[in-house]
C-alpha cells in the first residue's frame, strides 16, 4: 500500500477514526505522517484533519468575495483554506459571515454558553442588550423613523454609562 499523501513510499502509519456514521482511513508513510504531526496518539487531533478542516474546508463566500482580509492582521480567506486556522481574534468579526455556516456544522450551538472572564461577566448582559438596541437603531435610521431612533439612542446612552446615571438618583 502506498502513502496516500506522497503516493511514493509504502504506507506504514494507518489511521482510522469513526466520526458519526462515517469511518475514515488514512494510510501514510512515516515522513508524511511526521510532517502532518501524526505521531502521538494522545495529542494528535485527527478530527481536525479528518473532519475536513483545513484543506477541504472553505468559508462561505462573503459578499466581499475571496479577497476579504482581516484589517488587523492581514489574514485572508485563502489563508484559512490552507490552514483551517484563523489569523487573530479579530478575524472572527472580519469573517463572521463566512464562519456562521461552518460553526453551525461543527458545534452544538452558535452562541457561547458557559464561563466568561469575570470582568466581562457583569457587563455581558448589558452588551447583549446594547447589541439589540443598536440593531433596532440601525433599522430605524434605515427606515427614516427618526423618532424611534432618538429614543433608542438615548437608551443606548444610558446603558453604556450606567454608573453615573444611577449615582445621580
Amino acid at each position, binding site marked *: 500500500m502506498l502513502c496516500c499523501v506522497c503516493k511514493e513510499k509504502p504506507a506504514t502509519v494507518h489511521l482510522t477514526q469513526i466520526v458519526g456514521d462515517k469511518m475514515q482511513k488514512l494510510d501514510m508513510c512515516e515522513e508524511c505522517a511526521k510532517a502532518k504531526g501524526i505521531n502521538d496518539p*494522545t495529542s494528535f487531533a485527527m478530527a481536525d484533519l479528518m473532519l475536513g478542516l483545513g484543506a477541504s474546508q472553505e468559508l462561505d463566500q462573503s459578499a466581499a468575495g475571496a479577497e476579504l482580509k482581516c484589517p488587523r492582521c492581514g489574514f485572508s480567506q485563502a489563508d484559512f483554506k490552507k490552514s483551517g486556522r484563523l*489569523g487573530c481574534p479579530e478575524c472572527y468579526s472580519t469573517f463572521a459571515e463566512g464562519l456562521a455556516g461552518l460553526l453551525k456544522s461543527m458545534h452544538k450551538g452558535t452562541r457561547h454558553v458557559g*464561563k466568561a472572564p469575570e470582568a466581562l461577566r457583569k457587563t455581558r448582559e448589558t452588551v447583549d442588550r446594547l447589541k439589540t438596541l443598536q440593531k433596532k437603531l440601525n433599522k430605524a435610521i434605515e427606515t427614516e423613523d427618526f423618532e424611534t431612533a432618538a429614543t433608542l439612542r438615548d437608551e443606548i446612552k444610558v446603558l453604556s454609562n450606567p454608573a453615573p446615571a444611577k449615582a445621580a438618583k
Partner: protein
Amino acid sequence: MKDLHSFLISPAEAAQQHGPHDRIVMSSRVRLARNVRGSSFPGWAKKPERVKVLEMIQPAVSSLPQMADSFAEAMDNLTALDKQILVERHLISREHAAKNVGSGIVLNREESFCVMINEEDHLRMQALRPGFQIREAWMAIDRLDSALEKKLDFAFDNELGYLTACPTNLGTGIRVSAMLHLPGLVLSEQINPIIQSVNKLGLAVRGLYGEGTEALGNVFQVSNQMTLGEAETVIVERLEKVMSQIIEHEENARQTLLEKKPKVVFNHIGRAYGILANAHSISSKETMNLLSLLRLGVDLGLFPNTRRALVDELFLTTQPAHLQKQLSDKLSAEERDLLRADMVREQLKDVSRPVTK
C-alpha cells in the same frame, strides 16, 4: 535554568500515582485554549510578535500560586530529546514539541498543571490527574484560568466566547479527555460498537497505528469534540457519564472473558509474558501491545506478586526518548530494540509465570 530531568518525576514515581478507577482510566485531563486580545494567533504571528506574547504570558503564568514551584522554559532552550520526553509523558503535544523560538512551557512540580505557550493558541492550559478525575481536573483548571484572567486580557466575544485559532475550539475552548485501557473490550471484540455509540454522542475516540479501531497498547483517548453552545460543566458531566459506562463495559467484558473464554485470555497473557520476559529485540509498538496484556494479567490476578506500577513504569521507560535518555550514545532504532528487550527482561526477571488455575 532548572534541569528538566532533575525536575521531572521519575518514571517509577510517576507509575506509583494512583487515582480512582486507575486499573482502567490511566489519566484524566482538561485543557483550556485561551488567547490574548490584540495579538495574532501563533500560527499566523511573525517571530517578534510570538516572542513578545511569550514574554508577556510566561511570567504571568509562573506568578500564579499553583505554579509557585515550576519549570518554565522557552522551547528553543530544550533539546529534541527533552521535548520528546515531554511528549511521551503526555505533558505537551506533538505539535508543541515541534516549536522553537517564541513558544514555551510552564510545568508545576506535581505535574498536575502544564501550560503550553504559543502552541496553536497563545495558551493551552492543562490540568492532569491520575485515574478517573475529570471533574477534579476541570475545577483545578477553572481556578487557574480565573487567576490568570486577572493578569491577562483574554480574547472573548460575547457571542462566540473565547476566541481560538481553530474554530473547532471556539466558545469554551475546553477539551476534556481521559486515556482508557480497554483490553477486555478489544479481546471480546466489543470495542467497535462501543466506539460507534460514543461517536454518536459527539465524542471522539482516538487511537493510533491501529487497524480498524485497535489502538496501540489498547489505550483509547475519549474526548469531547464540540466546544461551542454548551457549558463546561455540561460537557464534563456528559463525559463522566459516558466514561463511567465504558468502565463498566470493560469490567464486564473482562469478567465474561474469564468465565466464558479463559483459554483465550490465558493464551494472550501467557504469550505476552513469554515474549516480554525472553525477547532479545523488541520494537516499541510490540512492547506497548504486550505490556497492555501484561497489565490486564495483573488486573485479573494472574501475577499475584506483581504490582501494576511495574508495568506502568515500563510503559514509560520503553518509549524511544525515555530509552535514549538513559544512554549517552545516540542509538538507531534497531539498537534501541535490543536495549529495550534487555531492559524489559531485567525488569521482569522477578515476575513469575502467570498463574492460570
